[in-house]
């Protein structure tokens, strides 16, 4: 099978696997079938979904290298944009259903609650990455595009901290995700070392 066809099929699968659960979530929510606290359910579902997709995005390069299947690299943008989609819904759910569009309350929560501040920082960075994922902008930015998109490494750390600080006592999940994130970052150890060195030289 030609690489083009493989990429096409993979992308279709990614579209389906990302959209169906999201659509289903709101479908169930409209029918009041999400249990007693649907607000918590939709916020949690989209948050975990975003985190999963973010980790998947970071998995692509290591997997492509190890399996020597370069065509996989072409799925990164799609996966990243779906991570952003879930993150956008996660934030929108919080704004619409949790604080119910109370602007002052929303800003207050972002400023006063460290876990939300960290989450917002990650979201703003992710937004910059989503906007600059357009081919035209990528070409215009040249070398600085890759430098900006290296922010993914910072984003995954911020998101795992956001998750860790948001739970009451059930630390197993956040710690598990943190471990996965560290493993994926270790794949880029040399690169990250270079970035940090350059920033602080």
């Amino acid at each position, binding site marked *: 099978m030609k690489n083009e066809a493989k990429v096409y099929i993979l992308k279709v699968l990614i579209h389906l696997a990302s959209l169906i*659960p999201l659509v*289903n979530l709101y479908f169930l929510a409209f029918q009041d079938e999400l249990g007693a606290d*649907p607000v*918590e359910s*939709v916020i949690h579902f989209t948050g975990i979904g975003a985190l999963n997709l973010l980790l998947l995005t970071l998995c692509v390069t290591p997997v492509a290298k190890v399996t020597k299947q370069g065509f996989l690299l072409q799925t990164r943008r799609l996966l990243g944009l779906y991570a952003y989609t879930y993150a956008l819904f996660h934030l929108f759910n919080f704004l619409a259903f949790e604080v119910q569009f109370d602007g002052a309350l929303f800003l*207050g929560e972002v400023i006063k609650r460290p876990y939300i501040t960290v989450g917002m920082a990650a979201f703003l960075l992710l937004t910059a990455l989503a906007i600059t994922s357009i081919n035209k902008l990528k070409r215009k930015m040249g070398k600085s595009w890759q430098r900006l998109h290296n922010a993914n490494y910072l984003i995954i750390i911020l998101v795992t901290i956001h998750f860790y600080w948001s739970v009451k006592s059930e630390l*197993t999940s956040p710690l598990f995700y943190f471990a996965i994130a560290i493993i994926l970052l270790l794949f880029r150890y040399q690169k990250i070392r270079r970035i940090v060195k350059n920033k602080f030289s």
Partner: protein
Amino acid sequence: MLIKIPAKNILKDSNITDESVYLERRSLLKKMGFLGAGALMSSAITTNAKAGFFSNDEAQASFQTKALNYSKDTLNQTLLKTPEQKVISHNNFYEFGAQKDQPIALSQDFDVDPWQLKISGECDNPITLDYADLTKMFPLEERIYRLRCVEAWSMVIPWVGFSLASLLKKVAPNSRAKYVAFETLYDPNQMPGQADKRLGGGITFPYMEGLRIDEAMNPLTLMSVGLYGKTLPPQNGAPIRLVVPWKYGFKSIKSIVAIKLLEHQPPTTWNKLASKEYGFYANVNPKHDHPRWSQASERHITTGGLFSRNRIPTLPFNGYGEEVADLYKGMDLSTNY
């Protein structure tokens, strides 16, 4: 008229989904191959899909509850109650799993008979209640109370029980009794959360709570043996639990086996875990935020789903200030949280 013209809103029999197909819809979708998608993108870690896509229809409740005789709460009938299905399927009871939909799923085989509730300590007449005593020793009343969780959501629940004061009067506390300590059953064979740290949400067991003696003797403090007119389902703390409506829900300890009258303040589970976040008093206080989230308002869970505008301001003492504010006269509630 011989010719019947049905009203527009009457469904024809042919419109009604065949019951077997309706009940099977999720397994039908599974068979159509959507199995991997949701699990991949969402709750890969937890044992149940929060969205309910692959879990059962309305949570199964096979534990048999029994009807109770009680006097109705005439004062609070106008309070909008949380529907029973939500009350029994959305529970923080880490002994049966730390996800809110796990207690109903994992507790239906819980044994409540025989049961022993031992009251002892600084008192003249220590006693032990057995299962029958719980519903027979004292006349039962319905108490419709608000329950406010520290996580900033709340419900209105029609409990059935008797005042803790009547139980304590029976054991006759002596002059050294300044505090009352409570303990939940410890039985990892029946309570999977106690056997598995991950399932159990990272808290230590057995679950412990405590009150000052005057808080325990307050008429509002309830020993509950039922809700919605029937004995408690296991996920709500069968066969007997505490309800202290002016405090955060974690003070309302479930499935109690021991009550002890003490001279000194007892340790309590959440306070031991994170003392900066969960205090001994845990009075509902909109002016004292949890370090990581605001307590000024709450999501009030009654009828309605995602789009119901259910955010309400939190009231001091959960709205029971008239009955209990005096207990804390002169106390600084920002340090005694």
